[in-house]
């Protein structure tokens, strides 16, 4: 860890150093006890970035490898979905409201940014999207609704608001995803190389740590929730390695008060009132059963697919891009032939390079 992370005061710095040292020691002694190679997947893109930024890999023993998982919503959004967004953006009767993260992701050719159309608006929340709809009654506002459980409630509230207030020209294109079914799909696939999961902090605020019960029970893999501070990531890893060394697989959390076993039930209720799980494509991972969220039938007038009569979202991948392999933990970004050559953060080919939380982007910025 960089000493620059320790400015506040000497006492705090010492305390922090002690926690880091303690965690580092536990990790090393547990890994030594295990002997064989251990692979831990950090599910969350925020973790990926933090691990690089804090130089955490350099503190880990040789036989502990971190895999970057499918936990960046931009990265797992299928190219077919982006292409649908592009088609909708090219119409004259729409306004596309999107989080900034999606703006540079390339579809078949263009990205939203490269279209240079002024009906494409970057918004900070679904609330802003709904406000746009009220302001422009002659246009249909399509909200680009991507994200995991942390982000889904915002879409749910917006649709509920639109329904209540009768804002008929607002709809969402739901690409919302569920983390736990994807984790299970990774374990169920034949290429399973994952010994344990470092579980996302802010997704778990909504989900609750008990949500990982089925991963622990059915697949016997430790699941430990951590926040995004370097020291918490190390402490989470220490808990994971200790479990593996003892032959245990349990749910644990080092993310203090923010994550409870049951999560934010209010948020979860709003999600399940408005959405239902369905089968849908994940970039590089294919169709994962029950891991995508769509609006329930009674809200289908707010579903962009229904509104624009789009029947199917075609699935396609950019040629040569290995994001799928990387998201499954089967490859590290530098093993992709395009990495750092044709594909850089300025000229991204795949979403893992576009998103600042993508594994390729993190490797490019910090890993070399």
């Amino acid at each position, binding site marked *: 860890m*960089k000493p*620059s*992370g320790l*400015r*506040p005061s000497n006492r705090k710095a010492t305390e922090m150093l002690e926690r880091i040292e303690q965690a580092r020691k536990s990790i090393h002694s547990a890994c030594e006890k295990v002997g064989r190679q251990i692979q831990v997947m950090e599910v*969350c*893109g*925020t973790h990926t970035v933090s691990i690089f*930024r804090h130089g955490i890999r350099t503190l880990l023993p040789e036989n502990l490898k971190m895999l970057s998982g499918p*936990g*960046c*919503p*931009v990265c797992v959004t299928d190219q077919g979905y982006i292409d649908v967004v592009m088609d909708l953006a090219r119409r004259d009767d729409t306004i596309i409201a999107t*989080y900034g*993260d999606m703006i540079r992701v390339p579809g078949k050719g263009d990205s939203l940014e490269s279209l240079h159309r002024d009906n494409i608006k970057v918004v*900070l*929340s*679904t*609330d*802003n999207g709904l406000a746009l709809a009220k302001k422009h009654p002659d246009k249909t506002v399509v909200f680009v609704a*991507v*994200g*995991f459980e*942390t*982000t889904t*409630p*915002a879409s749910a*509230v917006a649709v509920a608001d639109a329904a209540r207030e009768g804002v008929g020209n607002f709809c969402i294109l739901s690409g919302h995803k569920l983390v736990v079914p994807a984790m299970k799909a990774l374990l169920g696939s034949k290429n399973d190389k994952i010994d344990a999961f470092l579980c*996302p902090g*802010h*997704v778990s*605020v*909504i989900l609750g740590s008990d949500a990982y019960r089925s991963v622990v029970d059915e697949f016997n893999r430790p699941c430990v929730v951590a926040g*995004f*501070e370097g020291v918490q990531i190390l402490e989470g890893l220490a808990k994971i390695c200790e479990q593996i060394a003892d032959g245990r697989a349990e749910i644990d959390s080092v993310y*203090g*008060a*923010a994550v409870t076993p049951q999560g*934010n039930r*209010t*948020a979860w209720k*709003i999600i399940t009132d408005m959405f239902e799980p369905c089968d849908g494509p994940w970039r590089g991972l294919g169709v994962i059963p029950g891991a995508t969220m769509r609006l329930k039938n009674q809200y289908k007038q707010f579903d962009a697919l229904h509104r624009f009569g789009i029947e199917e979202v075609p699935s396609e991948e950019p040629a040569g891009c290995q994001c799928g392999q990387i998201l499954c933990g089967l490859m590290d970004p530098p093993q992709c032939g395009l990495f750092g050559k044709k594909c850089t953060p300025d000229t991204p080919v795949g979403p893992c390079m576009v*998103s600042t*939380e993508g594994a390729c982007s993190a490797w490019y910025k910090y890993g070399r």
Partner: protein
Amino acid sequence: MCLAVPARVIEKDGDRAVADAMGNRWNIRITLTPDIEVGDVVLIHAGYAITKVDEEEAKKTWELFEEIAHFEAERLKAKQQEGDRDA
């Protein structure tokens, strides 16, 4: 994308509120955290409070953000200098 930042609720009106983090102010919704009162510190994601957090946790994150900003600025400076040298 799933990052949430801590901020203090300084005004509240129904399920809408104003939150402050290190002097930055946002209009937020507290629809998902109905028990929030003025003065509470919450984690905000995409304009929504998602949970209440304690003061100490929040302070650590605010400090961390300052560190990150500092670190990024240093990195940028180093990169620029490198660029200047190469040029």
